[in-house]
C-alpha cells in the first residue's frame, strides 16, 4: 500500500435525479415518440448499470421536431431582435452555472469521464459558450458578414458522446444567437445531459420549438440530416459518418459543417520545457480517456531527447489514477462503451502485431464496466496503422524525428488535420513550425486548451467549417 494513500473522495450522486424513462423534447414539451419508434437504454459505462430508458425517434418524430423548429423560426425566433435573443442565452448560461454540479455529476455518470474534468473543464466551458454567443446576438452586423446578416433557418445538429453537453453548447449557442432554431440529436450512449438541457430551456422560458432534442441512434441522425425541412446540417463525429452526410446532402440547398476525426501530432523539440511538455503529452492523449477528436495521439519527439522524455513520461503515467469517474481524485475514467473499448483493443492488438512496443503503468482496473489502461506504443513508424488511424482512446503512438523539417513532414503526413502541438522554448521556432502545419488548431507549449472565443475546426478529412469565436457565426448566417 502506498504511504500516502488517498482515501476515496466520491462526489455525491444525490444531486442528480435521473428519471426511469425519457420522451422526446419537441415544441417545448417532453412527448412520447410516435408509433414507429422504439426504446433503448443508456448505461453507466463505469458499472454497466442501466440509468434510464430513452426514446428512439423515428421518421414521424423527426417530422414533428423539424415542423416545430420551423414554426418557432418563422413566428418567433427568426424575427426576434438580437438583444432579446441574447436575454434568453444569458439566462441559459446562468442556469447552467447554477446547476453546474448537477450537470457535472450527470455527465460523468452517463459518459464515464472523471468528475474533475466534467466539473473543471466541460461544464464551465458550456456556460462560457452560452455567455460568449449571447454577447454576439445583438452585434452580428459587426461580425464581418455584412451589415444585416440573416439566420439560415432550421439547423439539424448531430453530436458525439465524448463531450455531450459541451458539443451541444458548441452547436446550439451560435445557432440560437444568429436567430436559427435547432433540432439536435445527442449520441445514443450519452443522451442524459442533453435531456437535462431541455429542462433548462423550459426553466429559461425559451419559446417552444426553438430547441428540440430528439434521441436515437444512427437511423435517427440520418433521418434528421436528410430531412427536407432542415436548412443547415452540423455534425461532429467520425469521418466515416461525416462522409456519408456530405454525400446525402450533396445537390441540396443545405449548408453543412463537419467536425470529424483527427490524428494530431504533438511535436516536442529538444529545447522544450520538458516537465511541462510531459504534462502536455499526458493532457493531450489521456484527457477524457483519449476520447478527443483533437487528441495529441501521435507524439513526435526529437531523437536527441527521446529516451529522457519517455522516462519522464512513464514516471508521470505511473501517477495517473484510473477508476471511479465520480471520485474527485480520478484522472482517467471509463471508456464510454463496449463498442469503443473493442475498437481500442483491436487497434492496440494491431499495434503490437505490427511490431510496436506497448507499455502501460501497473494499474488495477475495475472488474465491471469498460476500462483501458493508459498505454504508450514506442518504436512506431509512419507505416503502422496505430500511427495513421484514429484510436479514440488512451493510446499514444511515439515516433521520433531528427530535424524540424522531418517533424513537419511527419506531422502533416496524415489524412487528418484537426490539431497539432509544438513544444519549444524558442519563440521563432513556434511561429515557423505552426505556419507549416496543416492543422486547424496549433497549440504552442500547451495542449487541449479551449476557449469560446477561439475558432476550432479541421483541414482535410478532419472536416470543414469553424466552431467558436467570430468565425463560428459564419456557419449559422446567410450572407
Amino acid at each position, binding site marked *: 500500500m502506498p504511504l*500516502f494513500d*488517498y482515501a476515496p473522495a466520491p462526489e455525491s450522486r444525490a444531486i442528480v435525479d435521473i428519471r426511469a424513462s425519457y420522451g422526446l423534447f419537441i415544441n417545448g414539451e417532453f412527448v412520447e415518440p410516435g408509433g414507429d419508434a422504439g426504446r433503448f437504454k443508456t448505461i453507466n459505462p463505469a458499472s454497466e448499470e442501466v440509468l434510464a430508458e430513452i426514446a428512439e425517434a423515428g421518421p414521424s418524430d423527426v417530422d414533428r421536431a423539424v415542423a416545430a423548429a420551423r414554426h418557432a423560426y418563422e413566428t418567433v425566433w427568426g424575427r426576434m431582435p438580437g438583444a432579446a435573443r441574447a436575454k434568453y442565452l444569458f439566462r441559459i448560461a446562468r442556469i447552467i452555472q447554477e446547476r453546474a454540479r448537477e450537470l457535472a455529476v450527470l455527465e460523468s455518470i452517463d459518459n464515464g469521464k472523471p468528475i474533475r474534468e466534467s466539473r473543471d473543464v466541460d461544464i464551465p466551458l458550456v456556460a462560457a459558450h452560452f455567455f460568449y454567443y449571447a454577447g454576439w446576438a445583438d452585434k452580428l452586423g459587426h461580425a464581418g458578414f455584412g451589415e444585416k446578416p440573416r439566420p439560415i433557418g432550421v439547423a439539424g445538429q448531430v453530436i458525439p458522446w465524448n463531450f455531450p453537453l459541451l458539443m451541444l453548447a458548441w452547436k446550439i449557442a451560435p445557432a440560437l444567437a444568429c436567430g436559427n432554431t435547432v433540432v439536435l440529436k445527442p449520441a445514443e450512449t450519452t443522451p442524459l445531459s442533453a435531456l437535462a438541457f431541455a429542462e433548462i430551456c423550459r426553466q429559461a422560458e425559451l419559446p417552444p420549438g426553438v430547441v428540440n432534442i430528439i434521441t436515437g441512434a444512427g437511423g435517427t441522425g440520418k433521418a434528421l440530416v436528410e430531412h427536407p425541412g432542415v436548412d443547415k446540417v452540423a455534425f461532429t463525429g467520425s469521418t466515416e459518418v461525416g462522409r456519408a452526410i456530405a454525400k446525402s446532402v450533396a445537390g441540396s440547398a443545405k449548408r453543412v459543417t463537419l467536425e470529424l476525426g483527427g490524428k494530431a501530432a504533438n511535436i516536442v523539440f529538444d529545447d522544450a*520545457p520538458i516537465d511541462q511538455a510531459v504534462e*502536455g503529452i499526458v493532457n493531450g492523449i489521456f484527457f477524457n480517456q483519449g476520447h478527443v477528436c483533437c487528441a495529441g495521439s501521435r507524439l513526435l519527439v526529437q531523437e536527441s531527447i527521446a529516451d529522457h522524455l519517455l522516462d519522464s513520461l512513464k514516471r508521470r503515467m505511473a501517477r495517473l489514477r484510473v477508476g471511479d469517474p465520480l471520485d474527485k481524485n480520478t484522472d482517467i475514467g471509463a471508456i464510454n462503451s463496449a463498442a469503443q473499448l473493442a475498437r481500442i483493443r483491436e487497434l492496440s492488438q494491431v499495434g503490437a502485431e505490427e511490431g510496436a512496443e506497448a507499455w502501460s503503468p501497473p494499474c488495477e482496473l475495475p472488474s465491471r464496466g469498460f476500462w483501458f489502461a493508459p498505454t504508450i506504443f514506442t518504436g512506431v513508424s509512419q507505416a503502422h496503422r496505430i500511427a495513421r488511424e484514429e484510436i479514440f482512446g488512451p493510446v499514444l503512438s511515439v515516433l521520433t524525428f531528427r530535424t524540424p523539417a522531418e517533424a513537419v513532414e511527419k506531422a502533416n503526413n496524415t489524412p487528418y488535420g484537426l490539431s497539432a502541438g509544438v513544444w519549444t522554448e524558442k519563440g521563432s521556432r513556434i511561429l515557423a513550425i505552426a505556419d507549416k502545419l496543416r492543422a486547424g488548431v496549433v497549440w504552442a507549449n500547451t495542449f487541449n486548451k479551449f476557449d469560446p472565443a477561439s475558432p476550432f475546426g479541421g483541414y482535410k478529412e478532419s472536416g470543414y467549417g469553424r466552431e467558436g469565436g467570430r468565425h463560428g457565426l459564419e456557419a449559422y448566417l446567410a450572407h
Partner: protein
Amino acid sequence: MTTTVTRARPASGPGGELSEVTRSDAALRTFLHGLPGVDAVGVEARAAMLGTRSIKTTAKAFAIDLAIRMVDLTTLEGADTHGKVRALCAKAQRPDAASVTGDTPCPPVAAVCVYPSMVATAVEELRGSGIHVASVATAFPSGQAPLPVKIADTEAAVADGADEIDMVINRGAFLAGRYLEVFEEIVAVKQACGSAHLKVILETGELGTYDNVRRASWIGMLAGGDFIKTSTGKVQPAATPPVTLVMLEAVRDLADATGHLIGVKPAGGIRTSKDAIKYLVMVNETCGERWLDPDLFRFGASTLLNDLLMQRQKLATGRYAGPDYVTLD
C-alpha cells in the same frame, strides 16, 4: 570583495560527481542555461491541478500528522526574547497539550528555527527531545554582508549548538550572472557548518522567473546544500506551489542523475492545513513517497501549526475547536 576564503570545493555530494560543471564560471553558466526551461503557464497549471486533489478521512489524518512532524517552528523577529524562544520550544515538544498521550498522541515538530543569538537558549530547552535547532545565518534575510561576516555568523550559530543552518544566497550576485560566486559562497558556508545540515534559501520572490528558481536550485544542490528552501518569509511572494514544484523537480532530477537526496522547504505564507496538504500532494506526486519524510521535506511556518492542530482535533472529535483550545506559542 575581500575574502580570505580559498576556492572551496564540496567535499562530497553531487558537487563531487558533477564537479565538471562547477570548474569555471563559463562551465557553470553553460550547465545552468542548458537546463530545460520552465513554462510558467504550464507549471502554474500543474500546481493548480494538484491543488484540486481531495484528501479526506484517513488520508487527511496521515497528512496532518506528517505535516506537524515537518514543521520548522519559526520565530524570526527583532522583538524575540529568550522567554519567547523558551515558550516556542515547549510548544515544539508538545504541540497539542491535550493530546500528549492516548492512542494517537500528537507528534512533535521537526525543528525550532531562530536567529543566532537565540540558539543557545533553544538548544538548552530542546536537549534530548530529538527536535532540531535551526538557525538562520549569513546576514539573514538580505545576505548583504561581506563573506567573512556571513561565515562568522554561521560559525557562531554552530558553536552555540545549532545543528541546522538556514543560509541565504547572494541574490545580487545571482541576478548579475555571477553564478560561481553564489556557488562558492554556499560552499564556504557549508564548510563553516561542519556537521550541521545546511538549508539554502533561494529567496525565490526576488529571483523573478521560474527558470531562475531552477538554476538557483541547482547551484544550491551542487554546492552541498542539504535542503533548498524557498524564502526567508521577509519578502513577498514567499513560498508558492509552482515555485515549490520547480524546486521539487530539481531535487527529483538530481536524485535521478546521481542518487543524492536533497530536501525541500517551502517557507512563508503557508498558514492552513489545506495549503499544507496541497504541498504534500505535490511532494507525493512529483518526487514520490521517499520525500514524505521530515528529513527531506519541511514547512517553514509559525501560524501553520495551530491550524494543523485544530484540524487534527476536528478529525479526532468531529467538532471544530476554537482558537482558545490551542496554545498561542
